């Protein structure tokens, strides 16, 4: 009975995932060719991956299968292809790369909107960059050698697959030996033994000192069994995400990541990944942090799009409305740093996924998609080349972690960047802002633990006093400064408030001093604004300050300060106020109400 296959994690890097993916595509191929049910669920069980099939594989049918490439041999400009049989097709890296460049240029001109008309270039192969990295890192020879040894199995390929599936259906540590034994039993032949463990496949086993006994500093090339490497090579080529990352002028590194499945169907995994790699890959031209951030955001977008299409098709909705990191847990990757002619392993890392993206119905699917587009539009205006590395790194820490506090860290620096940018007459475009609706959706899923009880952040963000003071911050910073408004902009407020946020007393002093100067300004300009019929500023009152001080007493100054900054520097105040008026009349006032209130107080 082969209904479950187990792939033990033994490398502790992305090689584990890649090996499992190499196997899963063979299983899928065997099921497809023998017309068996193809549903495969990939489940991460901690120590191993489990490939759960709908029905047991009929191994007798599999044994009759002929050879097919699990991955093609690659050919770059300088690849030696003398070993590849002439009639055999190979992956022409030069050609596919040109096709990709053409498509990405088209995408850039169309501003990301793909139209499938006659003039549009064909979308590139999803694995284009995986072929390019193999030639770029000079691993094409190793890759082709692995392929060649696999190809030589030839007529016994069906029996090889049977041996493979049988061995992996048993939870064994040494599957290589088992596959070898089973294969030899069935055919009388032997499988290839070892191959070079090059860094792209096994990033921690690069050439270097690794001895059982510390008796020499001899640097040996590492060897591993052919079977593991052959599976890893297949997984990497078909499912990896590789990108060339610009580090400095004419210096490019490579970053390779693989999506770690948690509990997901293979068809879904493949479709989401292929769409990402083919139609909307994260850009590598603006530094590492931007690539990571784009990768996570765009992946989440594609996953939600997939869920949207599933929800439209009325499939089991129960399966769809879960946090994104329930399906896949994270991205595991390796950064290959350029050392001139060659590349070295610079980092082995993981990127978490935002668990707060957790739509509960179809409406929320759309809303979360909007939030993702909003975030994407913010970070695509930032670039390492223009000196935004710190901002991007802060954002990357937020989106790849699961803690809202990391968002505040980014937002404080970004708020001041926004104001600086607004004041710059030479700036090419208006800085992008996060919307209040987006923030509301984000804080919804962050439960803050305080004094042994769970606190819903909405207790703070829906407080009328909090909202009015946040709006005052907004009108004194982001909204201010234009001549037609008639009042000056305050600079560095986010930094000042945040730097005092460590202590309740200091923060209240800083906030009060802002409100005092704000009200002073209000007194000075209000008459004039009224005369000229211009939009007037919100008046804050004692009650608002009392409420915020209460919130600070209850929840601490740091949290309230961060939220005030996040909301104060957001966009959409007009909109949310109107919708609030429609929904409730509980004290969150419209612009008109504010003015009326201001007048009465003034009188």
């Amino acid at each position, binding site marked *: 009975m082969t209904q479950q296959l187990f792939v033990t994690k033994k490398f502790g*890097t992305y090689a584990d995932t890649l090996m499992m993916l190499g196997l899963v595509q063979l299983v899928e191929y065997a099921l497809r060719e023998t017309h068996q049910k193809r549903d495969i669920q990939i489940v991460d069980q901690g120590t191993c991956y489990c490939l759960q099939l709908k029905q047991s594989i009929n191994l007798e049918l599999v044994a009759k299968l002929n050879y097919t490439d699990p991955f093609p041999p690659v050919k770059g400009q300088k690849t030696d292809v003398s070993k590849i049989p002439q009639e055999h097709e190979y992956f022409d890296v030069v050609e596919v790369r040109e096709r990709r460049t053409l498509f990405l240029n088209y995408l850039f001109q169309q501003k990301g909107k793909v139209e499938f008309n006659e003039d549009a270039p064909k979308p590139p192969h999803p694995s284009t960059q995986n072929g390019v990295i193999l030639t770029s890192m000079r691993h094409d020879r190793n890759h082709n050698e692995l392929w060649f040894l696999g190809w030589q199995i030839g007529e016994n390929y069906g029996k090889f697959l049977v041996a493979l599936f049988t061995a992996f259906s048993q939870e064994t540590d040494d599957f290589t030996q088992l596959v070898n034994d089973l294969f030899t039993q069935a055919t009388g032949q032997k499988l290839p033994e070892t191959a070079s463990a090059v860094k792209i496949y096994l990033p921690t*086993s690069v050439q270097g000192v690794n001895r059982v006994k510390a008796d020499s500093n001899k640097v040996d090339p590492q060897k591993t069994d052919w079977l593991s490497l052959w599976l890893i090579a297949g997984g990497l080529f078909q499912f990896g995400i590789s990108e060339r990352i610009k580090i400095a002028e004419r210096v490019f590194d490579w970053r390779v990541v693989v999506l770690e499945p948690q509990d997901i169907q293979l068809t879904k995994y493949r479709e989401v990944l292929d769409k990402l790699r083919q139609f909307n890959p994260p850009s590598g031209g603006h530094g590492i942090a931007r690539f990571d951030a784009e990768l996570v955001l765009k992946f989440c977008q594609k996953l939600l799009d997939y869920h949207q299409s599933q929800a439209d098709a009325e499939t089991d909705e129960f399966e769809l409305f879960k946090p994104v990191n329930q399906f896949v847990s994270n991205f595991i990757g390796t950064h290959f740093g350029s050392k001139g002619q060659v590349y070295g392993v610079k*980092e082995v890392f993981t990127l*978490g996924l935002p668990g707060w993206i957790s739509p509960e119905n179809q409406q929320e699917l759309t809303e979360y998609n909007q939030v993702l587009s909003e975030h994407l539009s913010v970070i695509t205006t930032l670039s390492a080349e223009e000196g935004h590395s710190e901002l991007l790194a802060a954002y990357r820490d937020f989106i790849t972690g699961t803690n809202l506090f990391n968002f505040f860290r980014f937002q404080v620096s970004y708020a001041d960047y926004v104001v600086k940018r607004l004041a710059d007459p030479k700036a090419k475009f208006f800085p992008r802002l996060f919307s209040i609706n987006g923030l509301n959706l984000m804080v919804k899923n962050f439960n803050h633990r305080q004094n042994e009880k769970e606190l819903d952040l909405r207790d703070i963000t829906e407080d009328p006093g909090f909202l009015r003071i946040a709006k005052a911050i907004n009108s004194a910073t982001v909204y201010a400064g234009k001549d037609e408004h008639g009042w000056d902009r305050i600079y560095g407020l986010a930094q000042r408030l945040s730097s005092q946020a460590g202590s309740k007393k200091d923060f209240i002093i800083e906030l009060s001093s802002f409100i005092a100067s704000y009200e002073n300004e209000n007194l000075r300009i209000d008459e004039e604004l009224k005369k000229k019929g211009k939009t007037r500023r919100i008046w804050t009152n004692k009650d608002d300050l009392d409420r915020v001080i209460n919130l600070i007493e209850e929840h601490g100054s740091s949290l309230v300060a961060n939220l005030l900054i996040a909301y104060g520097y957001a966009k959409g105040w007009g909109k949310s106020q109107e919708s609030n008026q429609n929904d409730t009349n509980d004290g969150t006032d419209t612009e008109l109400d504010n003015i009326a209130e201001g007048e009465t107080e003034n009188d």
Partner: protein
Amino acid sequence: MPKQSPKSKTSPPSETVTKWLTVTYQPVSLFSLKRSDATSMAARSNLVPTPYAIKMALLKVLLESQGRQHLTDFDAWIKTEFTWIRDLIIYICPPEKLVVNRNGYKLRYYDQTADKADKTRPTLPMQDGFVFREWVHLQGHLQICCSAGNRLSELERLFSQINYFGKKGCFFQYLPDGKQETSEPLFQPNLTTGFTVQPMDDLGEKTTFNRINPFSTDKAQLGKDRVIKSGFLPLKLVATSARYDIYHRY
């Protein structure tokens, strides 16, 4: 749930194993210990010291403190001492919180190709490059539970002298008040709560002192003298990003 040493599954504890000693350390600097399956250029770190590293630390303090007294009967003395240290069953309980920091270093290292090309050069050729290192911040106390047998006081004395595990300079402060003697291991393996897998290496059942002694020509073999098995640590990955991982203990 602590890591179970591979031997504890296969060989029943000998009759002398009646007592378990649990010692506690306060980490006082960042910790790093290259995983035994990684190479020096891409050295991922273990999260906590492995039984192999702990036994090596014990051996180090043993040799440093008592080695000089056994200059004449060194071979016989080290044979018995090494045997009981080798056969220790070790469980490890990680601290409450761990943060793995990922770093890249620029450094100069041995250039093998240049050395092979010109054997006559008087100096060792070096080349520029970078290496990958992970440093782990441990918050809380590290506990090690050990089968002490009839060597309890000796073992305790050795543990109290250890001031680092793993890479040189990864200092730990021994806490005398955290010492406990029990008849059963203080931590019991519990796989139901969830775990993080870490490859744990240990000394092989039949290895000898000379096989692990760098100054001896005896060869050490992977799988026989140094055994690597999966260890399960009661840790949960709570956040991860390009530069760090945060783990909390279950």
